[in-house]
């Protein structure tokens, strides 16, 4: 129980850990070699958290990629992350979707469940309730495909655990703002 106390960071205020928030940042970048490494390296180099990260090209002609990163920290840290990201030369735009309050977040998961008899029926009923699709089936297993908010996926995975959860593959969060305007 006596984990060694980590030395207090000399340069942060004592209240630093008291109000940790989770934010989703959308980062539009030029799709050039190494740009993801720059973004990820910023997080590791400065000691920021990455809870989830997705990246894909979204406009081929303009070489535009969109990185969605879910991170946690105090409001001050989140503000720092935002502006540190803006400093990266190939970064075009950074938007804190959590601050806009009007954003949609979705994640896709594939969940492998193994079981026979009553467990198999339970799995099917729950999958239906969660609107999960069966994408693969054998006589003793299913693979469900499920899309939703991360907490919904957490919930589904928790329910599958006693039934016979084998493994989960998740994409991480993709996010977009509501309404007709771009971010």
């Amino acid at each position, binding site marked *: 129980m006596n984990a060694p106390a980590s030395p*207090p960071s000399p340069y942060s205020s004592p209240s630093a850990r008291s109000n940790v928030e989770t934010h989703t940042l959308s980062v539009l970048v030029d799709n050039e070699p190494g740009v993801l490494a720059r973004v990820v390296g910023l997080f590791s180099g400065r000691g920021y958290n990455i809870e989830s990260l997705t990246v894909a090209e979204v406009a081929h002609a303009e070489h535009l990629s969109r990185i969605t990163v879910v991170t946690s920290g105090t409001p001050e840290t989140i503000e720092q992350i935002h502006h540190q990201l803006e*400093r990266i030369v190939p970064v075009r735009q950074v938007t804190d979707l959590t601050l806009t309050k009007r954003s949609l977040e979705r994640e896709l998961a594939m969940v492998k469940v193994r079981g026979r008899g009553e467990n198999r029926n339970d799995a099917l009923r729950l999958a239906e309730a969660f609107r999960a699709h069966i994408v693969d089936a054998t006589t003793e297993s299913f693979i469900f495909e499920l899309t939703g908010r991360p907490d919904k996926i957490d919930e589904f995975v928790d329910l599958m655990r006693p039934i016979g959860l084998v493994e989960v593959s998740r994409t991480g969060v993709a996010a977009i703002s509501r309404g007709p305007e771009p971010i």
Partner: protein
Amino acid sequence: MSREMTGAQMIVEALKDQGVEVIFGYPGGAVLPIYDELFHQDVVQHILVRHEQGAAHAAEGYARSSGKVGVLLVTSGPGATNTVTGLTDALMDSIPVVCITGQVPTHLIGSDAFQECDTVGITRHCTKHNYLVRSIEELPRVLHEAFYVAMSGRPGPVVIDIPKDVQFARGTYAPPRGVHHKTYQPKLDADVELVREAVRMMVSAKRPIFYTGGGVINSGPAASTLLRELVGLTDFPVTSTLMGLGAYPASGKNWLGMLGMHGTFEANNAMHGCDLMVAVGARFDDRITGRLDAFSPGSKKIHIDIDRSSINKNVKVDLAMVGDCAHVLESLVRVWRAEAAQAEKQPLDSWWRQIGEWRDRKSLAFRNSDKVIKPQYAVQRLYALTKDRDVYITTEVGQHQMWAAQHYHFEEPNRWMTSGGLGTMGYGLPAAIGAQLAHPKSLVIDIAGEASILMNMQEMSTAIQYRLPVKIFILNNEYMGMVRQWQELLHGGRYSHSYSEALPDFVKLAEAYGARGIRCSNPADLDQAILDMIDYDGPVLFDCVVEKSENCFPMIPSGKAHNDMLLADLSDDAGIEIGSIIDEKGKMLV
């Protein structure tokens, strides 16, 4: 006008088109085509260093003393990795540097080829931006863009990694045509409404202070001129970080001296007691703030910086203006002139009276001696004997650096080159070489320590080869003095490996290189020895043998606030008992 040529030719053409007159470099297999092109021309002067770290610091010294981009050219593998310290140094101190590295041919990348390393991977964290040029088509754009990125916004180092096959390939070169970067467009001017609000805060301040930093120097000479004008208009006191020395003249009546860990009593107390702090191009570094939760507790803070991420990073401010120092200062001067005249400006008499009391503590005073040269005295004499000349000062890192900052006084920007952010021992000699190349007729002095100077001693050869009359003024106390001081403060005087054992005879060492060596250990001989150094037409290694156990005061111990300074005790030879002053939490800091 576009022309067809090889990649190597493009590199040299781009250097010419960017106005580069001097580059620092070291040849090797992966840059041979570029060196062959350099051979055929005499517009760009190549300075052969003796170690690639030296090339990086020389480019920094050149850049900082001239306001231009410093350029270096090194080979792949070890050539590139040896520049990492210099690149990191330039990143921390915001120095515009372009570093061209050779790379193995593209088809060998990733095969662990001879002298291959992942240069863009290694330098990603220590550059503002970097490029691996994969085809001849992108080379001209990347070359010009690199200079733009290095120089604009908050300046910094940029690496261009160029595989050897790209250097041989032929393509079409186009000269720079007003680079318009699609994503990188720093904002230069602050919003007018924010400037007005800042002036309102300044007009009503009773205990204001300007806290200026390296950003004022980086912004160019206009920023220093405008700062002086604004200080003249407002009559606010002004202090500066290590990096910002010279932006406001040390002889100016509003000057409080440097602030921070080894800053003056008046500067730090004024920072602690002010009701309005105007930070200009400074970044609230931990050497400046001391204990954060006790940093200037009663003040409103205005922050001017071109880097948005510097704002609210360490210290929360009340009003932030993102922009270039010169642009924002110009707006402040203009609005102050227009609006402050009719507004109720607070009298600052009692604030200046208070500052006068702090000044009277004479926190830079030290006990002089007629038997042994005190390091502070050595810097004072060096200043007195060189101040009327056209002089540029560089330093290494340690006690001598702080004594130089305290006792050498700067009237102009770009005259002072020191490794502030990274604290790189070995910076001073190559930086002096760079400064001397930018200013061939000026007096360039590296104020050094005997430990630091040995880190890049090999660059003496460079100075000899190019007849650069740099003067290296070593404050030799036979210790890594700042390490020794901290061991005295924190570790019970157990001087673990901080004694400079087996030192070379610096006079003989100088002679071995073909330079002049001078040794002085008697205070009475010091002036004449310094004059001999200045008068010698060539590089000089000056071994100034000083008091061994002198500590650098004043000092804010780790974990303490600005109003909790240690001052030298002038009455007691042994100095002050400071072993118990730093608490357990403070010991964890550096």
